[in-house]
């Protein structure tokens, strides 16, 4: 009885803390708070589809400014994890926080996107009927309400931002071309550029070098390394050579949870990781990496 009382008392005290406003009165668009640690925090997240556990007690933290690579065999839950972070899929259990203030499980896709989480799909997804310039303009951070969008004009600052991003992704010469006629690699870069226009704090990049030629892959690796530091970047990738060229910390996913985490060398020599990859198509890839 007294314990319950003290618990209740504590909750009341927490609720009425003098040093902060009530949660329900706090502005929804408050900036991401990373003073107390990671920018992304997943705890005990589980989700199953028709009895199949796609994500099983997943724990993952990403620090501010970190570049993290996530590898794992097909069906390890990489894409589902991104779906959960971006609000497309709701987990059955667990916690997902962006900074220490924003509960991702209470928000939908546009809210999460406007909060500063950008996502690149596995298949390059750009607006093919629009020019490169228009693609970037649409992605630019700003007021997304219908009426504001109708009246929106591209200002000087916006134009400079577009030029800047075009420079970063190396598409300055393609400004007025339709996105639909770009090469596969250029579409991938354009999509990354669109993420940058959102001014994200966290970039989720799903298989950025799939289908790329060797030189394109090198440029993408450069791009990824350049982006990390200004924002946190999480890259999901199959290509071990690419992962090795950019990775500082690698997380291995297997059957929906984290199997190993560490530097590329540590992970590649981990007997459990080798075991998981052995017999799979990607076993040779891991050894190649060692």
């Amino acid at each position, binding site marked *: 009885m007294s314990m319950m009382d003290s618990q209740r008392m504590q909750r009341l005290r927490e609720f009425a803390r003098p040093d902060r406003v009530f949660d329900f009165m706090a502005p929804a668009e408050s900036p991401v708070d990373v003073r107390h640690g990671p920018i992304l925090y997943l705890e005990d997240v589980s989700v199953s589809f028709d009895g199949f556990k796609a994500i099983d007690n997943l724990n993952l933290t990403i620090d501010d400014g970190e570049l993290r690579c996530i590898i794992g065999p097909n069906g390890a839950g990489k894409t589902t994890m991104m779906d959960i972070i971006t609000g497309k899929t709701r987990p059955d259990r667990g916690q997902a926080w962006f900074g220490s203030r924003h509960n991702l499980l209470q928000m939908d896709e546009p809210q999460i996107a406007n909060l500063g989480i950008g996502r690149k799909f596995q298949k390059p997804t750009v607006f093919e009927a629009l020019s490169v310039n228009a693609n970037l303009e649409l992605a630019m951070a700003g007021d997304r*309400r*219908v009426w504001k969008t109708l009246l*929106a004009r591209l200002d000087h600052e916006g134009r400079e931002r577009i030029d800047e991003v075009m420079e970063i992704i190396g598409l300055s010469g393609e400004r007025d071309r339709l996105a639909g006629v770009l090469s596969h690699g250029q579409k991938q870069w354009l999509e990354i550029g669109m993420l940058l226009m*959102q001014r994200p704090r966290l970039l989720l990049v799903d298989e950025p070098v799939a289908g790329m030629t060797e030189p394109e892959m090198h440029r993408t690796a450069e791009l990824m390394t350049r982006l990390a530091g200004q924002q946190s970047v999480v890259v999901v990738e199959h290509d071990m050579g690419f992962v090795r060229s950019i990775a500082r910390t690698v997380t291995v996913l297997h059957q929906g949870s984290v199997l190993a985490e560490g530097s590329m060398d540590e992970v590649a020599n981990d007997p459990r990781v080798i075991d998981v990859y052995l017999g799979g198509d990607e076993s040779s890839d891991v050894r190649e990496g060692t």
Partner: protein
Amino acid sequence: MSLATMFKRNSLLDERSTWITSVVLIVGMLAVVVLHALPPDHAWHLNGSVVSLLGKYLTYMLLALAVDLIWGYLGILSLGHGAFFALGGYAMGLYLTAQQAPLAPWQAVMAHFPVAALAVILAPGLLALVFGWLAFRSRVTGVYFSIITQALTFALMLAFNRNEMAMGGSTGLTRFDELLGFALAGEGMTVALFVASGVAVLLAFWGCKAVTRSRLGRVCMATRDAEARVRFIGYRVEHVKLAVFVLSAMIAGIAGALYVPQVGIINPSTFAPLFSIEVVVWVALGGRATLYGALLGALVVNYLKTLLTGVMPDAWLFLLGGLFVVVTMFLPQGVAGLMAHLRRRREVTA
């Protein structure tokens, strides 16, 4: 020719099509008015029934514009836009009957023109708002959305057929006498309604053009091509769809309101699913996502319909079906796409 210059030329063509369409509309309207004003025994005189027929075409063009706005630019295929057209029409019909004797006591309020004018816009707008909110919130898209729009217009047709609705039952609303205090039967009224329809088409064309050329218009096209990407860059896709859908329904309602006094009747057959499908055929034939294509398609198909139903009424549906098959198979961009293609080819060979 590099693809970059092709894009530039395409956007230029887009600009050019806007003023060509505007000029053709204005000159055409003036020509009809002038030809009608000629003495009746003059060889070029247009009589009142022809002017009235052209006025009806103009309201169809307005309806086609509304369909193109959501189908061409947003990729939402509504097979029930006739419902919004008919609601606007019924609002106007109630106003016209209320001038003499309203069918039900509550309809007396419709005798005031401002109330009726508001109802013309709000009735279709509200229906689109509620229906669209439910559909887009649940992310109903593609063919499923098309099917429920068919169900919507069919359900409304059944409802308006009932006498309890006090909307004239299966006969609908007819026997109109006067509009804004002027007799409907006069030649002057025929010309006035024709001009009003023409002005409405012109204003709606410019309005739709402004919307499609704005950033919102580009968000629409982006939604049409890659909806998930639009959501993940932070736009509320369902709000965008809802806003444009409601705008489109309101334009359709205005078209219906202009249609009713020119044909003198509105009945539940306007809610028929077939009519809504026919509207989609006009737009497909003219060319989607161009706006002027929709205007052209509505005019051409309806002119053909008038011609053919006069000569051999049985053949019309076969021709309409045939046209749709031919356009779908050989002209996916419609007549507008064919014209753009020919122009490009001429420029390449020149």
